[in-house]
């Protein structure tokens, strides 16, 4: 696709114009398609635009929305924005949830820039994953907020980031184990990966919420948020392991042999020679997997947690603002879309950049 747009950009203006004209009205089929699509757009777009913009109510209360009639009630989103963003987190402590959210966004921003990839980034991730939950809990100083009261965007981002970070080391071990010459270890890894990839995420979530508490010694308990986080991390690890395995397979055998010839041990070979190349090769699929994880965090609704989608949904059950589900869902969809669309565009940009780097390396 990128090659096609590049070609189009390089072509002279008149050439592009001719292509556009041919595409729209160049043949009888294309004329028919153009009319069909135009009809479809003219049929679907005006009602949506009328609902979302022309007839929409931007300010006021539920009564104003009801009086205005058929348009969207964006005043509802304006009124409930804080609840949708932070859920049942105590309102006077919203600055903490906001700061946690900003820290996580900053972490993602730093991670996105290839110039920062390195050991220091790992330390940063460790610090963020320790700091953000402590900040949300209010530990060691400040008012304590239990995880049941966490909600909204900070929960969605923390679930996704925590699961990815937790899954990563496990996935590398699983991928190495699956390619190991040790039959027993290989068997264990294959069972783990294939079972988790064969069942829906909900089954893993139920195992973590219904079953796991029964497996602990009587009287002890583990926090529900943590259980959901670990369930998500284990689930992600199985998929991540397969992506990493793809990267390991892409490393030429000569690299292993060269490392062996230098007398490096298995772990040093992997850490210094094989994994840096293997992981580099799978960065774009990793970003796509991360987008999938971000969307999969919504499933925690089923075990009664308040992630962003759930707070948006629950905001429409407020007795003062009853039943504005459509507005809530459209708003939530917009937020998810912006995050995921940016990430997928980033993945394309990164792919092009890494491919360019590869070319100059082999060429030079």
């Amino acid at each position: 696709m990128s090659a096609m747009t590049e070609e189009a950009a390089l072509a002279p203006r008149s050439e592009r114009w001719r292509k556009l004209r041919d595409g729209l009205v160049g043949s009888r089929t294309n004329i028919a398609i153009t009319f069909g699509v135009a009809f479809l757009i003219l049929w679907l777009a005006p009602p949506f635009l009328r609902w979302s913009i022309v007839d929409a109510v931007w300010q006021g209360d539920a009564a104003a929305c009801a009086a205005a009639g058929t348009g969207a009630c964006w005043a509802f989103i304006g009124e409930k924005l804080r609840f949708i963003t932070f859920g049942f987190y105590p309102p006077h402590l919203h600055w903490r949830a906001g700061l946690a959210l900003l820290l996580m966004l900053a972490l993602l921003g730093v991670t996105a820039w290839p110039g920062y990839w390195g050991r220091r980034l790992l330390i940063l991730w460790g610090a963020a994953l320790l700091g953000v939950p402590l900040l949300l809990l209010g530990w060691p100083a400040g008012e304590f907020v239990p995880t049941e009261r966490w909600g909204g965007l900070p929960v969605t981002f923390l679930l996704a980031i925590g699961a990815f970070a937790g899954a990563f080391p496990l996935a590398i071990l699983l991928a190495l184990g699956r390619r190991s010459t040790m039959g027993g270890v290989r068997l264990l890894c294959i069972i783990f990966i294939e079972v988790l990839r064969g069942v829906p995420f909900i089954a893993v979530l139920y195992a973590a919420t219904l079953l796991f508490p029964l497996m602990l010694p009587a009287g002890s308990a583990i926090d529900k948020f943590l259980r959901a986080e670990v369930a998500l991390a284990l689930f992600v690890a199985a998929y991540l392991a397969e992506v990493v395995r793809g990267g390991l397979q892409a490393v030429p055998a000569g690299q292993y042999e060269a490392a062996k010839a230098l007398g490096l041990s298995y772990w040093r070979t992997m850490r210094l020679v094989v994994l840096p190349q293997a992981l580099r090769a799978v960065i774009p699929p990793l970003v796509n997997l991360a987008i999938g994880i971000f969307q999969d965090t919504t499933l925690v609704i089923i075990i009664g947690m308040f992630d962003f989608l759930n707070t948006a949904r629950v905001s429409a059950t407020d007795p003062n603002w009853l039943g504005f589900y459509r507005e809530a869902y459209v708003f939530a969809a917009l937020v998810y879309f912006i995050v995921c669309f940016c990430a997928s565009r980033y993945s394309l940009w990164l792919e092009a950049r890494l491919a360019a780097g590869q070319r100059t390396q082999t060429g030079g």
Partner: protein
Amino acid sequence: MNSPASLQAAVPGPKGPGFVRALTEWWGEKPLTQLAIFAIVGLGFALLGGNLVHNMARVGLTPGFGFLGHAANFEIGEGLIAYSAGDSYLRAITVGLLNTVRVSLAGCILATILGVALGIARLSSNPLLSRLVQAYVEIVRNTPLLLQIFFWNALFHALPGPRQALAPLPGVLLSNRGFFFPFIADDGVTPAILTSSFLLAVLVGAALKWRARRTGRSNFKRSAALILAAAILPVAIAAAFGATPAIDLPRLAGFNIRGGISLSPEFMALLIALVVNTSASIAETVRAGILSVSAGQWEAGRALGLSYGRIMRLIVLPQALRVIIPVMTSSYLSLTKNSSLAVAIGFPDLVNILNTTANTTGQALEAILVMMLAYLALSLAVSIAMNAYNRRWALRERSAA
């Protein structure tokens, strides 16, 4: 990498007992470390299992599948087999499994049709069409599936009631009680006529295929006409004897709609969400598959004077399918697994009913084991079916070359 069998054949000298030798070779290096890992994993499971048995005993439960025969005292909204609240848990779980299979199967078929059409449309030379499909794919892929399910569910529950039901097509009624479609009338004759029509058409189709393989020649138009004639023949014979096949149209009766086939709003919301979501990924797969066929194939087709449709059907798609089918398999697998999101909108699928079972009986371990085994079995079934299909295409390639 280096197969143990060939190594073993190459190594001279006395050979040990075959099985033990194969086992130790498979087990590989560091046998004791591996045994230790197994011991730790086993110990962990034993510990958790011990706690589980202990905790269940404390509330008066014994692990085991005996509860499956007990009466499940909950209602299920819809199902393919008869069920009432007094029936056993096993029957309730079967109803759930059949609902999962029903929505997955319908979803896979519809998503394939829509996805292939969108994938081809995405490659259209008309920028308006390809951009529209691109926007569709981007919107669908960049929003969570659960959100889409909620959206369709809210939309279908906001439809007017049965008395003001929408009728987009004659005989189709859409209301907040469900979607009603015309269906074969259950009058004793119609099902028999249509079944014989179907069987005869399949028989003729199989015979034509066998002939085409033997002679190496086939005529698409003539075959289609023959199959159509075979399907019409039983209907014509029945009509000659005065028995016409009847269609049962849904119609308003009192405060509800009767007749035809009805599908609940939850089922439709889940089905549409799964179809829309999966069609976007299938469209991308199909597009990539078609692009993987070299441009020379198109040029050769055009040089032979074939039309766009024939080039696509006879030359490009058969080659693209080899790239498409393996990826399609994983799309089908994820659709089947994603159907478990039904629990969020209250459609009684397998996960929903097992969740209720776990909550009413307390047998969480057994319920989750059944859940995992059922999905593993479904995944395996889809994989086996798709691999068989894939092999057919691979074989065809070899015989053509």
